[in-house]
């Protein structure tokens, strides 16, 4: 899951950032904005690779200190890979910059997956204190 120079796209509702990878998949992670609201992650639950993920349907969960947040995607996709290191020890997510530590990679069902998502400028503007 090597980072690329591709731009980040954000979903405020799902609390996720998304970045296109050269092989057509998309890496996905938790936004700093969401992590600030949740606190330091203590547990992450994800389904296995190959699981179809439907738009706005919860597929996993992040739990911080007694706070649960259901994970869902803003578009249809299939789960390609999971970040097993993060699953084993989610504490590393705390403080991770947007785009730096993905939870998973997915293969979108449609090519225009970023349509309707926020670019970085719009997201920063929306979430500015």
């Amino acid at each position: 899951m090597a980072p690329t120079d591709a731009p980040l796209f954000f979903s405020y509702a799902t609390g996720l950032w998304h970045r296109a990878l050269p092989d057509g998949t998309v890496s996905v992670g938790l936004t700093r904005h969401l992590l600030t609201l949740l606190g330091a992650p203590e547990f992450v639950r994800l389904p296995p690779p190959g699981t179809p993920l439907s738009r706005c349907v919860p597929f996993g969960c992040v739990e911080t200190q007694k706070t649960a947040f259901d994970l869902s995607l803003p578009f249809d996709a299939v789960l390609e890979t999971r970040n097993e290191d993060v699953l084993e020890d989610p504490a590393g997510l705390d403080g991770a910059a947007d785009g730096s530590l993905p939870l998973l990679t997915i293969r979108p069902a449609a090519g225009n997956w970023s349509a309707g998502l926020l670019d970085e400028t719009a997201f920063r503007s929306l979430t500015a204190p």
Partner: protein
Amino acid sequence: MTFHFNPSTDPGFNLALEEAFLWKAPRGGVFLLWRNAAAVIVGNNQVVADEVDGAYATEQDIPVYRRRTGGGAVYHDAGVVNFTFVVPADGDSPAVLLGRLLPHLGVAGIATDRNDVLVGGRKIVGTAQALANGMRLFHGCILHNADLQTLSRVLTPPPEKLRRHGVPSVRARVANLVEFLPETTEDFMARLARACVQANGWDERPLPPELLADAQTRRLFPESVFCE
């Protein structure tokens, strides 16, 4: 913020009602007060068999429900008073919300960094949260006059060599509020409601019929207590 008293003691319905408020609460927020019939309520990411004595729960006819919020397993009965805040996620923190409740418990309780409340070093209030739809569901249970013997027994799972991947409960010494302030649970609930409404300027209202109907449709069903 509006205050609603929920008279239902059906855990499946009550958890669904919380969920309904999470998706349709007014921006000003809501506060609910309610109780359940005897039940175990496990956290979102817990493995039931790791947290519950399944054989005892079955024998005593104590159902197990899974809630949306995180944290550990709790035991509810008529002596446990539950509260729920549903507020904007970027609004008041759980510590601030708990601060609206704490002065009215009637005892000198101390809030911990886990947003629990201790009296004399023993836990009388446990809390948990979920974030969704831009809102925060922050709820907790107040041990007023719970059956602590059953609580201890049902929340002690049989020893297992292999613990499955889930969030473990954090065990704590617990106490009932009635040890420090004798009154019936009904009187306690009424006093707490009155004090919170007056001190915080909340608007007491009946439960919205559309959310009651929603909760009835989405009523939760008990979990299996044994591993698959």
